[in-house]
């Protein structure tokens, strides 16, 4: 209660007691406020006591809680990455051991190699344990499939059961840091995905968010002017979610009789055509609504958006692929999938959409990882199996694999250097390709200088004519029906047809997939070459299994080849460890800065909110003194009365 000003005049007793009451109340009020400040440790009990500081305290408190969580996030991420790093260290160690074994094995005997293969078996187990290691109950290398072991031994190599979805954690609002490395990134557990641009056709059902390769567009307002009937309108397309919506909104605004919006003949964009006269479409000032859809045009007879590049989605119809030409006949055709010991014709005739096809390919018996590629314009198919070769070819003369962009077939123009997992074909090693013909003669064909598969085929087909003296051309090389390799047909006689693996140290016959013998005496049967463009995972499991097999079979050629593969993989793995290490460092730096930020925030919060004890205590003492004085004076003045003197 405040004390009012005293006007000159009477001082009745009631006024005196009123004033005293007010003084006592006001002092007691400020004293109890100070006491509350001391007891609670806070400068204010209600925010309105000090709105400026209280508002600051409220936002600082929330900032503090947020910072603490970010700090906890950074720490949990560091823990996860540390565990990942130590698992990777074990794996890296195993790879180094394997490198040593491989280097020393080439000159060793078969028995020594067999003993080494046992050692490799131990390494495989060691790496498997590390690759299946867990932290806090989650498998480190499983991607998002981290509740069950990501790697398992199958009859057909080691399978990766995880995916490529990583985890991350927030260390600042909206700023995520990756905290895991999936099994493929860490251990190259999947073969490089095959899948090229399928160029799906634009349809009325295509979502605007799927345009521009999945980047999507957010539609806005456009300005449309027709010359006949002369009209100009602003059309708001912000409600549109599909191409069909765009068509509806434009046709509805201008009258369907006056303008037609349709999918263009190439099925990659839309065309907007007025019934008569010309059309002009422009952006609204400051907007990009028309440019986003590519439909800016001035006084033309028709406007075409150009390629809107719709992304592939699981609901895209297979018939809409390849610009609407589809994937060819599927009945009786399909895909020929070779994945280690799996060799299966996959019937895709029941698939209508990309999703259906993906489901068929996801059949666990095929051991494939199937999804959409990173660009969003095609499929991505890899083998989940390490240690085996993987190929997709055509069945029964079909074109499904090629039309789906997932064929690993070769063509005449396929570069030799891209074959055999990128190892190429040693055509320039100074050794010819040696073929024992069905008539018993031996043809040595010099393939040096060949760059493409067609070059090799041409040289083989030419060999009879090029012989001195020339003989009747009876040897025909061609790409086999599945499109996976080269096959040889020799009609020179009725004996067996065989191709030499290659001189020791070179592997020309093996590299062309032709090494071997067609023992029959029917010269209409070709010597079928093995697949040349086989895919393989190439990671540590792949290497170790192949190393083990090569040691067991005393295959020096493969051992030599694996040497360079191990070096490449070791470099890649140390790169991954580098990434993990730098993530750990980043998170630790963030952790440090968050902790100091935490302390600063706490200081600021304390300044805003906490009682300054020294000040408050001295104020309280001052108030107490004043209060005592007030009471003393009150007692004295209240006692004074004229009646005392009568």
């Amino acid at each position, binding site marked *: *209660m*405040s*004390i*009012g000003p*005293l006007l000159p*005049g*009477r*001082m*009745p*007793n*009631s*006024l005196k007691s*009123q004033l005293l009451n007010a003084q006592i109340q006001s002092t007691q009020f400020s004293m109890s406020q100070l006491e509350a400040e001391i007891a609670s440790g806070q400068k204010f009990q*209600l*925010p*309105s006591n000090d*709105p400026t500081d*209280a*508002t600051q305290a409220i*936002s600082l*408190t929330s900032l503090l*809680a*947020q910072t603490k*969580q970010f700090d906890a996030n950074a720490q*949990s991420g560091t823990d996860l990455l540390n565990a990942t790093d130590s698992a990777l260290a074990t794996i890296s160690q195993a790879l180094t051991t394997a490198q040593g074994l491989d280097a020393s094995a080439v000159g060793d005997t078969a028995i020594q190699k067999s003993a080494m293969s046992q050692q490799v078996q131990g390494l495989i187990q060691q790496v498997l344990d590390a690759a299946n290691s867990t932290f806090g109950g*989650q498998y480190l290398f*499983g*991607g*998002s*499939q*981290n*509740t069950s072991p990501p790697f398992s031994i199958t009859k057909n190599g080691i399978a990766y059961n995880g*995916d490529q*979805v990583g*985890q991350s*954690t927030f260390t600042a*609002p909206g700023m*995520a840091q990756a*905290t*895991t490395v999936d099994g493929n990134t860490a251990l190259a557990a999947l073969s490089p995905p095959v899948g090229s641009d399928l160029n799906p056709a634009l349809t009325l*059902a295509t*979502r605007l*968010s799927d345009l521009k390769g999945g980047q999507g567009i957010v539609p806005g307002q456009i300005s449309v002017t027709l010359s006949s009937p002369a009209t100009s309108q602003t059309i708001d397309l912000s*409600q*549109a*979610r599909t191409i069909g*919506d765009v068509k*509806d*909104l434009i046709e*509805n605004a201008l009258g369907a009789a006056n303008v037609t919006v349709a999918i263009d003949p190439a099925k990659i964009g839309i065309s907007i055509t007025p019934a008569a006269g010309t059309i002009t479409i422009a952006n609204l000032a400051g907007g990009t609504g028309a440019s986003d859809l590519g439909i800016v045009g001035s006084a033309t007879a028709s406007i075409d958006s150009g390629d809107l590049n719709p992304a592939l989605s*699981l*609901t895209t119809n297979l018939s809409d692929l390849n610009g609407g030409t589809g994937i060819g006949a599927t009945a009786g055709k399909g895909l020929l999938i070779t994945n280690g010991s799996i060799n299966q014709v996959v019937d895709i005739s029941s698939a209508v959409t990309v*999703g*259906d096809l993906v*489901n068929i390919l*996801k059949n*666990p018996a095929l051991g494939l990882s199937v999804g959409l590629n990173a660009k969003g314009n095609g499929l991505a198919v890899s083998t989940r199996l390490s240690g085996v070769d993987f190929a997709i070819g055509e069945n029964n003369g079909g074109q499904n694999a090629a039309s789906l962009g997932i064929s690993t077939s070769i063509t005449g123009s396929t570069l030799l250097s891209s074959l055999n997992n990128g190892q190429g074909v040693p055509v320039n090693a100074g050794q010819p390709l040696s073929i024992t013909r069905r008539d018993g003669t031996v043809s040595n064909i010099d393939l040096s200088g060949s760059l493409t598969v067609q070059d090799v085929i041409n040289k083989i087909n030419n060999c009879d004519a090029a012989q001195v003296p020339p003989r009747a051309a009876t040897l025909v090389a061609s790409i086999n029906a599945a499109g996976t390799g080269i096959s040889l047909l020799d009609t020179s006689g009725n004996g067996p047809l065989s191709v030499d693996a290659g001189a020791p140290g070179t592997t020309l016959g093996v590299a062309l997939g032709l090494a071997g013998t067609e023992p029959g005496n029917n010269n209409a049967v070709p010597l079928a070459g093995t697949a040349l463009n086989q895919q393989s995972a190439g990671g540590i499991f792949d290497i170790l299994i192949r190393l083990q097999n090569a040691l067991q079979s005393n295959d020096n050629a493969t051992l030599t080849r694996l040497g360079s593969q191990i070096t490449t993989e070791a470099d890649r793995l140390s790169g991954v460890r580098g990434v993990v290490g730098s993530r750990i460092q980043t998170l630790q730096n963030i952790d440090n800065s968050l902790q100091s930020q935490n302390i600063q925030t706490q200081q600021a919060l304390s300044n805003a909110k906490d009682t300054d004890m020294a000040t408050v205590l001295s104020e309280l003492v001052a108030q107490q003194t004043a209060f005592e004085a007030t009471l003393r004076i009150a007692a004295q003045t209240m006692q004074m*009365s*004229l*009646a005392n003197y009568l």
Partner: protein
Amino acid sequence: MGLNAALAAAGTALDVYAAGVQVSGNNIANANDPNYIRETLQLAPSYPVQQQGLILGSGVTATGVKQQIDLYLEQRMYAANGDASGSGATNSVYQQLESSLQTLSNSDLSSQLTGLTNAFNNVVNQPGSTSNRQLAIQQGVQFAQSITSLRSQIDSLRTSINQNAKSDVTEANNLIDDIARLNPKITALESAGLLQSDAGALRNQRYADLTRLSQMLPVTINDRGSAGVDVTLNGQALVIPGEVQHLQAVPRSDRGMTVFDVTVQGSTVPITGTQGEIAGLVGGRDNVIGGFLDKLDQFTAGIINQVNLIHASGQGEHGYPSVTGSYGVKDPNAALDAAGLPFPPRNGSFQVQVINTSTGLAQTGTINVDLAGVNPKTTLNDVVGQLNGLTNVTASVTGDGALQIDAANGYQIEFSNDNSGTLAALGINTFFTGSTSGDIGVNAQLTADPTLLAAAQGGGPGDGTNAAQLANLANLSPAGLGGTTIGNFYQQTVTSLTAASASQNAVSQGSQGFLSSLTSQRAQTSGVSLDTETVQIMQYQQAYQSAARFISTIDKLFTVLTQI
């Protein structure tokens, strides 16, 4: 003038001075009544007589007992009473509301929001951990409960204000009756007097009534002297001669409960403004608390819709064998954006994955929701039709207008890519239920099975992509919050409440201070000073003694005369 006349004058003087002592004695007796108005005895020389050419005084007469009151000051006090009580009442409403919010503690709503986003952060850190998911859902339940319990605290605050206003109405009606009763009595008592303040005790009582009434209502008081006072409120008569109007509490439905407005009987215009306790309370209830409730509802609806929009497009560790929406439409044949849903959907589509639980393979179907306004708009029955077109899915509309989707045996349903907001609008695969601060809750399907928390976007149990969006919740600005982020909105609401409360406190202190100064002035004029009264009594005593001595002198004169 003869001795007899002198004796008579002296006798009157004795009477007058005895009355004077009585008046001062009465003042002393009432000295401790703060409403008491001190009285003084008004004296005047008696009418002179002309005798043998001399005009002689005939002693003293008491003309009356007068209340020492400054009527102009009283009028100012009535107005100041209204201001002080009105602003004080509103201020107390502010302070009670602030106490309910617990802003400075660690359990207020903004801390709960941080707790919820922190729990989502932990799901992001380790999406595969069921206990993290469980904690996030638990935190959601706690968040929802802290909103509903805040709402019920605020509602009980409103209820107590209602009761306060109703008891104020009763008190005001009693005061009105009392004033109306006192008016004629005072008139009757003072009919012979000239001072228009003779009926001191009754007037005191009426002044007290008027003071209290002016604290409750912004009344205008017209003092017509002995004829009585008229009391009017915003031009409507409460007390005028021959007529008394009472106040009444009129029920009205406001923000989910019955509140009472105060009106003059027969009028429909409620008493509002800033003056008087009743207007201060009612204004505090409707503007301060009501305004805060609107913001709280806006905040709640913004969060519910934002969280649900994100959640509905994500997937849990497994799909739903059966799912029922938490929001029903009024008419399944009405366009979805006009079917009475609290969060109407927009034009767009969503996708449904039907998963074969034994193979894990999914069939994706797209459900189009056409609300662009060109073609006939999609209704709930249309959505049901499209869903029924998918293999292994049965959809129907429940009795209360909600969508129910069932998967065939051995199948489960998941949802994704909803750019229409339909799933959130229908409450399918959502996190929160309800739409206001009164009914927010967490979807019972999630509390029963935490693995349904939609942390993933297409990945396995370790996929936290969708949870990451939920963890970023506080930085999102849903349409309903006018461009402010969720995290800032509540803080801004509390900040503006705090600032308003502080300024209301200042206003209240100011008007209280002004009232205090007027009260001091009133005490200076009308208060009893014991010393003054003692001096007064001594004066009367001495005058009485002198008059008595005068009588004894006259007595002696008579004795002399009779001894002749």
